[in-house]
Structure formats: structure tokens, C-alpha cells
């Protein structure tokens, strides 16, 4: 078991190293998301109180929709030859998926951390309950990353993967999106965001189980 976790860590480290070299997630997707945050007020009007209210919601929507680009980059990074290498190394599907999920979660947290100051600067949202954000962001990132590896292995080697992946991910990511936005709103209305945080944790655990139990089914190489 311990050896498997070490393999998992090796895959995550390799994935992150690849990202550092290619720089796709943070150097391309993050500015793209920031541009979207800049565009929305031009489309809906520059009404300051309205934007203040929209801010947190926009932040999480952009994180979800553009995060899909970060999530699905795994399948473009790995060639069939590399997938065969992992299969012949006897790496169980679940371990490979968890390794990739760890790397994606780290990237999503970084993506969120880059976007947060942009939203604060452009939208000036209420900052009540910001300490909760520090736990909500990793929770959402882990959930999206796990959902992402499941969807990614479902569409792997399919021609339509770049469009089908987001269609599979986004509707199922709704609990995460609601948990994130509502915990912010709960704090703004003086209620406790704890139930929403628990919702995010529950979703994370369910997806973790899905990866663990379905990993060997999705581990197709040829």
C-alpha cells in the first residue's frame, strides 16, 4: 500500500513538473480567466453595487468553466506510448488517476489564488467570511480535480474528448459551485457557511470513492 502511494506521489510530481515546463495552466488559462472577469462588466453594465454582488459568483463560475481547461489537459499531455508504459509498470488505474488528481488540484488552487486578487480589484466584493475561503477553495479544487480525472478517463482516446469532457464535468460540478457561492453568501448574511463546506467535503469523498472503485475499469490502454 505504501509503495502505491509513493507511485501516486511520483505521478503527481511528474505531472506538476510537466506543467512547470509547459506552463499551460497558469500562463495561458489564468490570463484567459482574468480577461473573462474584465469582459463581464462590459456586457452587463458597470453598475458598481450590482458588480459587488456579482463578484463572488463570477469568480467561481470562471474558476469552474476555465478550470475545465486545466482539468482536461491530462489527456493531451499523455501519449498512448506513455499510457502503455504506466500500464506495464503495473500502476493501478486508481493510483494513476489519484496522482493526476493531486496535480490538478494543486494547479486549480494556484489558478484560484491568481484570480482572487483580480476579482477583489475589479469587483470590490464584500469580504465578510474570507477565512472560510481558505478552506472552500481547496475543497472545490479537490472535487473538480477528482471529477476531472473521472471524466478525463471516460473520454480518453475519443475524438470528441475536448468537447465531451466539459459536458460531462460541468453539470455534475453544480454542488461544488453552489457550496462555494453559498458559503460566501451565508457569511455575508451572517449565517454559518459550515453546512456548505460539509457539502463540498461530502462531494469530494464521493468522487474519491468513485475513483478508487472505478479506477481499474477505466484503465484502458490500447
Amino acid at each position, binding site marked *: 500500500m505504501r509503495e502505491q502511494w509513493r507511485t501516486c506521489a511520483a505521478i503527481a510530481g511528474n505531472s506538476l513538473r*510537466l506543467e512547470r515546463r509547459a506552463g499551460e495552466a497558469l500562463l495561458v488559462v489564468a490570463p484567459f480567466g482574468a480577461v473573462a472577469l474584465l469582459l463581464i462588466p462590459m456586457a452587463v453594465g458597470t453598475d458598481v453595487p450590482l458588480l459587488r454582488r456579482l463578484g463572488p459568483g463570477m469568480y467561481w463560475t470562471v474558476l469552474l468553466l476555465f478550470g475545465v481547461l486545466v482539468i482536461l489537459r491530462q489527456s493531451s499531455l499523455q501519449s*498512448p*506510448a506513455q499510457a502503455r508504459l504506466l500500464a*506495464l509498470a*503495473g500502476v493501478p488505474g486508481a493510483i494513476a488517476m489519484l496522482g493526476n488528481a493531486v496535480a490538478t488540484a494543486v494547479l486549480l488552487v494556484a489558478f484560484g489564488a491568481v484570480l482572487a486578487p483580480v476579482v477583489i480589484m475589479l469587483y470590490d466584493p464584500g469580504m465578510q467570511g474570507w477565512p472560510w475561503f481558505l478552506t472552500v477553495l481547496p475543497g472545490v479544487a479537490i472535487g473538480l480535480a477528482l471529477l476531472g480525472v473521472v471524466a478525463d478517463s471516460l473520454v480518453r482516446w475519443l475524438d470528441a474528448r475536448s468537447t465531451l469532457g466539459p459536458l460531462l464535468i460541468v453539470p455534475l460540478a453544480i454542488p461544488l459551485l453552489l457550496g462555494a457561492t453559498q458559503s460566501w453568501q451565508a457569511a455575508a448574511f451572517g449565517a454559518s457557511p459550515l453546512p456548505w463546506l460539509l457539502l463540498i467535503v461530502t462531494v469530494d469523498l464521493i468522487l474519491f470513492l468513485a475513483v478508487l472503485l472505478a479506477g481499474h475499469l477505466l484503465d484502458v490502454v490500447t
Partner: protein
Amino acid sequence: MIDFAGVGVHVHRTPVLRALDLTLESGEVTGIIGANGSGKTTLLQLAATLHRPVAGAARVLGADLSSAVPAHLRRSICLVGHEAALYPHLTLRENLRFVAAVLGQTQQSADTALDTVGLGRAADRRVRQCSQGMVRRADLARALIAPPKLLLLDEPHAGLDSSAGDLVDFLVDEVRSRGGAAVIVSHDRARLDLVVDRVLELVDGQLVPVRSLR
């Protein structure tokens, strides 16, 4: 090591191999030749437990291919395809160390393997900055990290200079001396006949013996 009897394999619903028989004993090295599209690569992938046969009985290292193959058996198979399993953005050393990590070997073993194939001084170059021959050598070095029981080489001679061609012979002898077996697909009959015990030709999805050039 390999025991195929009447095996049929489909790839993307197209039949590629049909009623194929092959037995490979421990210490045996077999060369495979065949026309383009005759199914040589599919045969190697089948031997690497990556296909499920649609007909016949197929066993590799004692495991039946019609059900899941245990991970520890897969680990003792090394497949070097004609497409290198290396990440273009990483250096040769990083690639080999990653392979060592997933195989449960030390980082030292990766560095030694690179030295053996003559890439010790180029180890910190990224794969995309390397020539085709260097990439080939690095891909072959994977087989040196943890010596496999079953070595499967797809066109190992393509793109290699003669000194690196000796490397293929060295790898095969290494595996043979440890009681392993190897299957080599190559169009380079001259080099192939130097290392193998027999040559088979893949015709009509089946294997037929070929007279040795020696």
C-alpha cells in the same frame, strides 16, 4: 513464457491477427518480420498483455490474457515501441527517473542506465532538444532500469548507429542470460539474424518459419 494457440485479435473492430500460434521458451529470442500492416506491432502489444484476444487461448508469463493480468507480472515485461514513451518537455534524466519511480527502483538505477547507453553527458537535455537516435537510445535505457523477464522490441534498429545497434544485442543477451525471453520486430535482417534463435514471418495474421540467413 509465451503460449498462444489459435489467437485472434481485433483492433478497432478490424481483425488483425487470426488463428495465430506462438510459443516462446525461457532463454529464447525470436525475430519477427512481415510486410507493412501485417500486424507485427499488434502481436507485440498482445505479448505485452495490452490486448484481449477475441479467439483462442493466450498466456503470457503464466497469466491468462482473457482476464486481468496481475500487476507484478506486467512489471516484468518491457515494451519498447517505435514511438518513444518519453515526455518531450522533460530532460532524459527526469524521464528515466520517473520510469524508475513507477517501477519501484532507485533514482541511481536510472542514472546508471543512461550512462550505459552512452547518454550520461546528455542526461540533462530535454527530450525535444535531442536527436531521433538519442531518443531511441534513452527509450531502450528503460529496459536497463529493471531487467525484464520478457523484452519486446519494435523496430529497435531503426535510427540507430552501429555502436547503438550493439546496444540492442547487449540488451537481448542480458535478458537471455537471466533466463528471460525476447521478441524483436525488425526489417534489418542482417542485424536481426545475429541475435535471434529463429525468425518467423507474419503472413495472413499467422506466423510461418523463415530460413535463417546464417
